[in-house]
């Protein structure tokens, strides 16, 4: 008989990594027409980080995402970056990008101020324009300013900057210190059906609520959460590298190492919780890894809720769940149905 259960799990996760400093650097070049080129040493590994970084540069320069072309991941031409690791790209590289764009923008403001007969600190960059704060009708197209800066003033609007999260090394005796600059939080709730005759677990639904600071691009945040959950489902129920007695893997292939497919995926509801981190670029933190953190815990709690067995070792394969159900039944006093 299929028995339904639900389980909740929350988590916290740091942005950036400990042990060593983890800086990122960036270069932003504003072209003569007001479009821009961003140079970053981070690597796009499928998560969409280059889109996010382009959006951050665009926001700072007051231009659109498509106005920024991102050049990445070439050690000859792009500045150093600690890399696409530790959920740090949006926060750490993003901060570097924002600072670099701000430096390029400062050059544009220096150039635009006399053209608009104001001081540079009275200017703002919005909607592809450099305009006077409070007087948006007094403006110049950003391309006109950028061209003037380069061609007339001889000051190409290029900004370079780096960012390293503020941390304090842990005391080796007590472990006290500030290992990370900021953290994100999340909760996932899983609903499962457990077949108490076969031990099979079917994950029906997962409701996820994640904090990522400002969602620079909500669509990419959703993508990360859905992907993280699929990884969590595999970790919870299916995936395991097995070894023989001589220490050799016995299932190093996708025939015998079972991963979730689209058919194993639950219905997923994604919620992005409102949050703003003052230390992040436009309030953003990050979301990459945390999405895969609470899924297994939520599913295992749901199994417990459904059939009353606590599986203490992952993965909760059908065999393991069935054995636990049988062991539990063996311990229960035998009852004859009074019907």
């Amino acid at each position, binding site marked *: 008989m299929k028995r339904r259960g639900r389980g909740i799990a929350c988590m916290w996760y740091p942005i950036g990594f400990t042990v060593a400093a983890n800086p990122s650097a960036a270069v932003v070049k504003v072209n003569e027409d007001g479009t821009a080129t961003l140079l970053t040493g981070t690597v796009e590994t499928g998560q969409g980080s280059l889109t996010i970084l382009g959006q951050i540069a665009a926001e700072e320069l007051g231009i*659109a*995402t498509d106005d920024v072309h991102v050049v990445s991941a070439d050690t000859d031409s792009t500045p150093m970056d600690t890399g696409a690791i530790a959920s740090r790209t949006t926060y750490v590289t993003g901060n570097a990008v924002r600072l670099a764009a701000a430096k390029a923008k400062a050059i544009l403001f220096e150039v635009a101020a006399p053209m608009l007969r104001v001081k540079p600190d009275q200017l703002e960059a919005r909607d592809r324009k450099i305009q006077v704060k409070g007087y948006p009708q007094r403006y110049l197209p950003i391309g006109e300013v950028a061209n003037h800066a380069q061609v007339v003033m001889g000051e190409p609007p290029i900004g370079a900057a780096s960012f390293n999260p503020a941390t304090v090394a842990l005391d080796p005796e007590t472990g006290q210190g500030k290992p990370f600059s900021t953290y994100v939080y999340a909760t996932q709730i899983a609903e499962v059906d457990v077949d108490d005759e076969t031990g099979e677990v079917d994950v029906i639904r997962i409701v996820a609520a994640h*904090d990522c600071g400002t969602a620079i691009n909500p669509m990419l945040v959703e993508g990360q959460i859905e992907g993280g959950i699929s990884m969590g489902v595999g970790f919870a129920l299916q995936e395991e590298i097995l070894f023989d007695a001589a220490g050799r893997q016995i299932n190093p292939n996708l025939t015998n190492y079972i991963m979730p497919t689209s058919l194993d995926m639950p219905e997923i509801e994604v919620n992005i919780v409102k949050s703003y981190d003052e230390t992040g670029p436009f309030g953003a933190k990050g979301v990459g890894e945390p999405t895969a953190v609470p899924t297994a815990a939520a599913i295992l709690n749901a199994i417990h809720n459904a059939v009353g067995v606590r599986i203490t070792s992952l993965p909760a394969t059908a065999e393991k769940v069935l054995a636990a159900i049988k062991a539990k039944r063996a311990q229960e006093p035998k009852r004859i149905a009074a019907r």
Partner: protein
Amino acid sequence: MARKTKVAEKKVSLDAWRETDETLRLPAITPPVTYPIETLVPEVRQQTPAVGQRATRPDGRLHGLGQTRYIDDLAFPGMLYAKIKRAGIAAARIKSIDTREAEALPGVMAVLTGREIPVNSFGPSLKDQPVLADDLVFHAGDGVAAVAAVTEQIALDALDKIKVEYEPLPAVFDPVEAMKDDAPKVHAPNSNIYATKLIKKGDIEKGFAASDHIFEGTFRTQMVEHVPLEPHASIAMWDPNGRVSIYSTLGRITLGRADIARTLKLPINRIRVVATIVGGNFGGKNEITQEPVLALLSKKTGLPVKGTFTRTEEFIATTTRHPIIMEYKTGVMKDGRIIARKVRLVLDGGAYCSWSETTLGKACILAAGPYNIDNLHAEAFVVYTNKTMTGAMRGFGAPQVCFAYESHMDDIAAALNIDPLDIRLLNAFEEGSPSPTGQVLHSVVVKDTLRTAAERFGWKEPRS
């Protein structure tokens, strides 16, 4: 005569069949990809302000059309294919490697062994991993020799012709066994425990003494692979100026370049690392693997050399997620408030350190969960075993400890007859809460995530 007619009939029908087949057959060579000159830019990419927009990815169109060029799609004139011979034995001393027969195979352009690598060790923190094993084998997936040949098949055939003689050594596979004094040492004479972490807050014994209830639980997790769609792949090209260009799936090119420079004994500015679009990383592509091997094979042959891992190599020769044994002991008041928690973590580090120190640190710091606990003692050990190395993988120890602290939390809630949501809300961090390391936390929204998820799920609604 009858027989002849039969043959003729068959011939006619075959020809007819061929004709239809020709019309259906796809061209053997894919026609060159032509892009529309006018590319529509989605409106959302044109909007300002940019932050908060659901902007599409610039590479999405190419992915959607199957036109993204990954490393394995790239080819350079004269390019060779490399393959690495894996040890297949978990712990051994290499007595001899005979490559003569492989070198004699037509089509084989070069063979490389560990002794030819200028500095045969690397690693993100401890430099404990050989590029190719030269003296000792530490796990079954270790490379012992590499071949560059004109085709992938010849390179594979050549691997079979390399004769390696091993003297088996005692091995240890269980991390708890490996912690014992008399266990075989994976990297003798060093202890198998290669890093530890301790976090202390308050007074753990007083905390337990003041608790109404004590709960204990032990949890274990398994070893898993990242399984990116795209396996590790690289192409190395040594040019006549003594510079080497490496196209690679590396997720961290700055660190990768430094590691390659160290192993090749080259100034950093003579190395160019280009990472193209990477088909998934999840932490598994954070360190170099075959790059120095390909670079040296390219140097030997003067030709570009490509190496693409098979799926099996992805499993046996790259990093995996740490299995962790997690012991929890928690002191709780009658109302569900947690006042003391002791955690002991043993991480199976596999044969090499890789990113274990980061994983150890994160697992230990996060082990208590997002909860205010005044008295805490968390200790963690990472241990060498003669198995596939464990390293960075999405979550760095967090999915493991979250499984433990949240399972433990539900057991506590059930024993005290408290709703699992309520016990979490009772203990969760708030703005300004001190973390286990004494850090004052900001932008803390864990309770918001709990409430949002519960509301959207319908947690408090009556169950059918």
